[in-house]
């Protein structure tokens, strides 16, 4: 287990360096003149240009600049936006809101996806099973650029059930619809995974043993089947975090939720490259760490998995 931990950690460091390198070199080769972008419409004199080039370290070679970027990242310094606000401040404000949204999304995924998956897995071939299968297919196929605006139109304008947009300091109620929209993207996959693994585990030897020992059905399902069926779902939820964050960009900008995705969309709209790069770097790191945690949880959940 310890050897696996070390190996997995080294692997994550390698992936981290490579992904930040890709993101940084893309930014480095970005067309346009960063100093002119900073000055806006005003002309920049040669002296000012030379000074700003020094201050921002633009005269340093590529590798040195990448190294600076990397060490800044590790010191949790994500740079400043074009308007001079530290990106860290923006993130500090935006994270709790996105986390609230993600929490609603995950609760929705678990309540609807996993529950429906368990029922469908136990009653395979029933009407419930077939109906949910077709329904999940529909949900998988509808991208968030369609789902978010359409549900906003239907549930806030056509039928005024929810507020159309969230306020600067959103309440749980305001976040409910965006959270459900965000969660519904992964409900379908969660349901299918649960269904497949529950129905596979129901056929397993250990379940038959438990049954023949005279264990009541509820206990067999709750302890033997569910615990083992949880394993692929935990991995899925971790990996899904990436698409959840990507989906949050669209959902948050549609519903005006001032979270991380909203800030990213704003950075794109206002051509604020440092803000975009800063947020993307943070999201990539969050994604990597989440994957690492998921891999470790794997070993805790499944006693059969013992890494060499």
């Amino acid at each position, binding site marked *: 287990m310890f050897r696996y931990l070390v190996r997995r950690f080294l*692997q994550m460091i*390698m*992936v*981290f360096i*490579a*992904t930040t390198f*890709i*993101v940084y070199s*893309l*930014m480095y*080769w*970005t*067309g*346009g003149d960063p100093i002119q972008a900073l000055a806006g419409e005003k002309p920049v004199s040669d002296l000012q240009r030379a000074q700003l080039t020094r201050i921002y370290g633009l005269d340093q070679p590529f590798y040195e600049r990448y190294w600076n970027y990397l060490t800044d990242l590790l010191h949790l310094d994500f740079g400043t936006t074009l308007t001079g606000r530290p990106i860290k401040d923006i993130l500090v404000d935006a994270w709790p809101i996105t986390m609230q949204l993600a929490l609603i999304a995950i609760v929705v995924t678990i309540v609807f996806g996993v529950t429906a998956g368990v029922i469908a897995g136990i009653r*395979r*071939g029933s009407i419930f099973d077939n109906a949910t299968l*077709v329904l999940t*297919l*529909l949900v*998988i*196929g*509808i*991208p*968030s*650029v*369609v789902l978010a*605006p*359409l549900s*906003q*139109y239907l549930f806030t*304008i056509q039928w005024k059930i929810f507020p159309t947009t969230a306020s600067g300091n959103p309440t749980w109620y305001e976040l409910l619809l965006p959270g459900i929209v965000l969660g519904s993207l992964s409900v379908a996959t969660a349901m299918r995974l649960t269904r*497949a693994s529950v*129905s596979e585990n129901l*056929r397993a030897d250990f379940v038959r043993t438990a049954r023949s020992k005279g264990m009541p059905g509820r206990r067999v399902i709750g302890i033997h089947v569910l615990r083992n069926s949880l394993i692929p779902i935990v991995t899925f939820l971790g990996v899904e975090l*990436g*698409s959840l*964050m*990507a989906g949050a*960009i*669209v959902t948050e*900008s*549609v519903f005006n939720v001032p979270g991380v995705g909203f800030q*990213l*969309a704003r950075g*794109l*709209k206002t*051509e604020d*490259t440092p803000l*975009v*790069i800063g947020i*993307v770097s943070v*999201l*990539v790191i969050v*994604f*990597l760490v989440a*994957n690492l945690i998921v891999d470790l949880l794997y070993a805790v959940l499944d006693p059969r998995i013992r890494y060499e």
Partner: protein
Amino acid sequence: MSDFESVAATELHTATPGPAGAPNAPGQPHTLEVSKPRSASADAWRELRRRPLFWVALVIVALVLLIAAFPSLFTSADPTSCSLSNRMGAPSGAAIFGYDVQGCDVFAKSIYGTKNSLLVGTGAALLAGILGMLLGVTAGYFGSWWDVTVSRIIDIVLGLPLLLAGIVFMKRVTNAGGGQTAILIALISILGLLGWTTAARVIRSSVITAKQQDYVHAAKMLGAGSGRIMWRHILPNSLAPFIVIITMALGSFIAAEATLSFLGIGLRPPAQSWGIDISTARAYMRENALPLIVPSTFLALTVLAFVILGDTIREAFDPKLR
């Protein structure tokens, strides 16, 4: 479970050779068919033919391809000739879904937007398919350092969520101010370069399993070269899951294009794209919802058709899922 058993039972039943009688007797041409064991793909095709969902998806895909190739067959209106006097015009005989905020024909815009979506989707799927197949097969077949390298590259690419890396890359391209063609090529290459990993992983693992099969050893002993073994003996066995993944990826690439265009870093307004249409219509949806609903429906149906197509093919090839 019970239906799985019954399927297995019928398979067994049809696979048993017919009762005594000359197999090639004239009058009984079907006996030969019955006694001959069917291949896995023929089996899957029989299963697929029975599924109405498969045919629905196939018809939608064919229709969407037709619209992309010949948009003028479906509408006589020009999506770029807009007149502000038609602003938010109600549906009429000339424009069945009315006009949008700029006075453009809503239906015509969605019809002409199909081409770009499919171009990006198929282009990216093709690129991802070729990359995934080449790297997956060679990594699985040759193993050793090449396998390690490819696997690490896969880890790195998987560490970059598709949309996030797409955003950084497309930001760079749109900052550089390329034309529509440059943006299209950029979209195809970034989605293709980020989307090949799942296909490569699946191919790699099925190649590793296939490599140890007797028929591969036999082919090797008969003197077949690496290229021939990979192409003729190993690849056909990994083809089914590969096709499924690529079909589903095509749907997600189309959705990603719409998302990037929606965020303003994909195609730009003179070009027709469902993502742009949805993004502009959203601001005016209180006034008129049709410009939002029509491109949304086109996008959802297209993505849905590819996802369903992939899903039904997978179910047909995987008897465990039946």
